[in-house]
């Protein structure tokens, strides 16, 4: 399990990185950020990139800052950065801290990056689910310029995103949450730290005792994470509680088109989707 040979590039500036990517991407050049998903794949030789453009030394990509009503997360910001909720990020900081503890294990989180997860786009990725549920915006950069891609358009299929050859996911922009937003995350995996068999992230606010602006996202169930409009409709206008949550869960089960594998029939994930949504809603309400 030794990786195949590649040519290594360690640019210091974004321009240099993008120029390199433009040059080597056609020769199976890939971006190396935290490497916590890419390197294992290379160890199994399931990936054999010809070139790696290591962006860890690129100035500015570690930027983490609030820009107006958005949290901007640069390409080399590590998962572990979010372990403790930063009050500057408001409720979003608490949400991210909730979510991050479910990502693999601490020594992986010290190295892996949020943008790396979004670029890798594993169906059960917690950050992908977060990006979709909150309506994040991806900032893709290349020598041709910058593209901003909405999360809903970004995740296309299992491990397939809207990024095109030569593009670097330089930044993700997460909208800050309005005051009073409730959030709940729940994931189910076989062991602590494993890939989720199913996960849900929900946010909503309460106005006059009723749920408004419900966001219900599920991950690990289908090939990409997505918001479930039917579940959100089942919640909006209802008082938070078992009845509304059960209705949302039922709505999710009814519409998802679950992944199947040798050990997990679609029916299992369909059922689980309702469970994780209900439990996420319960956590949000708690």
């Amino acid at each position, binding site marked *: *399990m*030794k990786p*195949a*040979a590649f040519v290594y590039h360690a640019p210091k500036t974004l321009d240099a990185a993008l120029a390199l990517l433009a040059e080597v991407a056609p020769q199976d050049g890939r971006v190396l950020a935290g490497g916590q998903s890419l390197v294992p794949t290379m160890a*199994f*030789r399931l990936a054999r990139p010809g070139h790696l453009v290591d962006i860890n030394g690129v100035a500015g990509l570690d930027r983490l800052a609030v820009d107006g009503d958005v949290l901007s997360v640069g390409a080399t910001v590590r998962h572990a950065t979010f372990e403790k909720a930063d009050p500057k990020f408001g409720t979003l900081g608490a949400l991210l801290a909730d979510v991050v503890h479910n990502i693999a294990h601490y020594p992986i989180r010290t190295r892996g990056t949020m943008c790396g997860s979004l670029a890798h786009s594993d169906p059960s990725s917690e950050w992908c689910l977060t990006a979709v549920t909150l309506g994040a915006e991806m900032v893709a950069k290349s020598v041709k310029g910058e593209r901003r891609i909405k999360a809903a358009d970004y995740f296309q299929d299992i491990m397939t995103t809207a990024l095109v050859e030569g593009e670097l996911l330089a930044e993700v922009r997460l909208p800050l949450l309005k005051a009073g937003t409730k959030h709940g995350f729940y994931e*189910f995996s*076989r*062991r*602590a*730290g*494993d*890939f989720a*068999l199913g996960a849900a992230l929900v946010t909503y606010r309460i106005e006059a005792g009723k749920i408004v602006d419900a966001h219900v996202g599920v991950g690990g169930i289908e090939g990409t994470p997505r918001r479930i409009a039917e579940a959100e409709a089942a919640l909006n206008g209802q008082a938070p509680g078992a009845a509304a949550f059960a209705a949302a869960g039922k709505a999710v089960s009814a519409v998802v088109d679950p992944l199947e594998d*040798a*050990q*997990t*029939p679609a*029916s*299992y994930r369909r*059922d*689980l989707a309702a*469970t994780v949504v209900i439990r996420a809603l319960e956590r949000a309400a708690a």
Partner: protein
Amino acid sequence: MSADHLAGAKTYPTPPTTEERNILGKRAVRLEDPPLVTGRGRYAGDINFPRQMHMRIVRSSIANGTIKSIDVSEALKLPGVVAVWTNDDIKELGPVDFRADRGAEILKPYRQPVLAKGRARYVGDPIAAVFAEDPYIAEDAADLVIVEMDELPVVVNCWDNPGEFEPGRSTEGALLKHSFGDIEAAFKKAHTIVELDLFTGRHSGVPMETRGAIGYYDATKDILELHGAAKVPHRNRETLVKMLGRAPKGLHVHESHVGGGFGIRGELYPEDVLVLVAAMRFNRPVKWIEDRREHLMCANQGREQRHKCRIAADKDGRILGLEDEIFHDQGAYVRTHGANVANRTLCMMTGGYDIPAYRGVAHYRLTNKTPCATYRAPGRYESTFVRERLVDALAHKMGIDPVEIRRRNLIRKDQMPYLIEFEEQGVEELLYDSGDYELLLDKGLKAFRWDERKKECAARRAKGESVGIGMVFFVEESGRGPSDGAKMSVDSNGDVELITGGASLGQGFETSMAQIAAEALGVDYQRITVVHGQTDRIAQGIGAHAARATVLTGSAVNQTALKLRAKALEFGSELLQLPIGDLDIVDGVIVKKGAPAGGPSLSLADLNKKLAPGAKILNGRDPHLAVEAWFNTDHTVFPYGMHFAQVRVDKATGQTVCENFLIAYDIGRAVNPMLVDGQLVGGCVQGLGGALYEEFAYSESGEPLAVTFADYLMPTAHEAPRIDVVITEDAPSPMNPLGIKGAGEGGINGVGGAIASAIDDALGRAGAVTQLPVTPQRMKALLAHG
């Protein structure tokens, strides 16, 4: 059954209790630890020789097929590649042999060639070997070897009709049988009969260190050395000597630090043979370190069996008979154990119960999956699951409490020693040497707070949780003979060297042996250096398997230390002018018993100097404090135990969480309770893996689905429950001088059964669990069809 069975067997008086002993039986810290916590261990991967080459194996990517061609030309062009071998390059080598085993002859055609011979039979089967200057290059070259194969139909389960292993040869390698009593009559007169169809899933030991082998040829002495060995170095040497046609003096096997064994590591595998042959042929050291993916598809696996079983009882719930038809999945080849696992399953099936009639047959079947062999508590994890499932189901059907039905059927203390004789010719009898099973049952129930927990669980269930408790009773076996020896000597500094033929796999072998020797001789255990796993230091050794090390090697060490002590006292008596009976050895010094400090004394170091060759005092006797002694036995010893589990089932996700576990285990006499505890707890968590998480699943085409640690799910600290251990010493073995029984397998034996039992209770459905591991997906299916 009576003590008559012991006629002819050498028995020993009841040994002293721990309180009466010095260091034996105490929680002594380990001698092994200092280098291991400072990064100074020397595992296989850490062993390097100048000019070494690295080997990489090209493996079959399909589960069954004929090899049409192997093109190595591109691989050979790669700079740094020395050679690529296929079976053509090692034509003279026979298949990897197995140790003598009953029924061995008929299994010989199923042995594994060192490199595939025209046919590969599982994904991972070695087809070619690359030798290169660097492991990265070796792997690059292996990728360039092009193997063309024609696929053949695969056999992926062991219970459908057998297929063809090769023309005219069935995939059913053997039909094994164990029986006693009149089974037909038992079922005919039964009041109640329960039938079950049970499955134990395929899992294995999966030590944290993968396998590794380094072949080194010392041309100056014409000695071929295998480094990175484990478990059974002496037996592997015997096999290698035969396979390679070398004189025994020209082949030695060396064990260094071993990163866990669990029965699967240290068996002889094709790669071990290859590094030796290559080291000789190239006259260069050859190093092979298995990678994890290889490990998960090539190292021995185990446990996969289907049992169509039934049990018969009279109106009081007394068991009249047990019958089992077993389908044993051996995988693609017969490996070093022959049919041992299937035989252990058969012979230990009746466990701790007094059952008058039994019939077990095992279909020993070859499939197109990774070969199987022994994994910690081989055949016992499986048979305990089956037997205890049956007993639980019987209790439920008859409306008898599960504790009560066990109490009624356990072998009584007054029946010990208890003989189980099988009708089949050549099947070894079992003689349970000692035990008070009901006493352990009572101690276990009390320690687990069975009655209170039962109420607590009922109360939680009333509130909507699915929680329950379960138990199993099992008998283990350890310390099978026939004999083991040890050598012991004192040096000029008074330090003691103890050479054994045992093996250390991380179980604390050095510490245990040092404690046994220290107790008998009268020295500080920390001054004893224990040598193990070196075939050039001692001619014979049993290694470390089937919990043999402590019992057999321990007894040999005891005898050796006593012999050394006798020699020291004999000379001490002459030099101190005191009768032997008045002398003792304390902390390495011969002293007069009961004498105050400053009395007559002689240190072993000084005595040893006085016993130099030529010394007058020797008077014809051998010089120095150096002895060798043997321990012989015809008999196995049988520790026994109970496992108690409490589980919670999350019906929404299907997840089973083990909340609490208790192991009650009678060890006869413990050498070091801290180590026993460690063995039991560690084994228990492994067992939990097999019960709830770990499974080597295969696709219909025989593709292994768990070849990464993201798919083969071993418990982490998070999944490990609180585990309490009750070690009892109520039934010391009369079969050895120390009264000891083995500890290695008592932690894992009953976990599958206990978890299943507890899940049934949590769901309120007796007999609900029929298959291990109980994954969330299986649990959901079970709940859906409830």
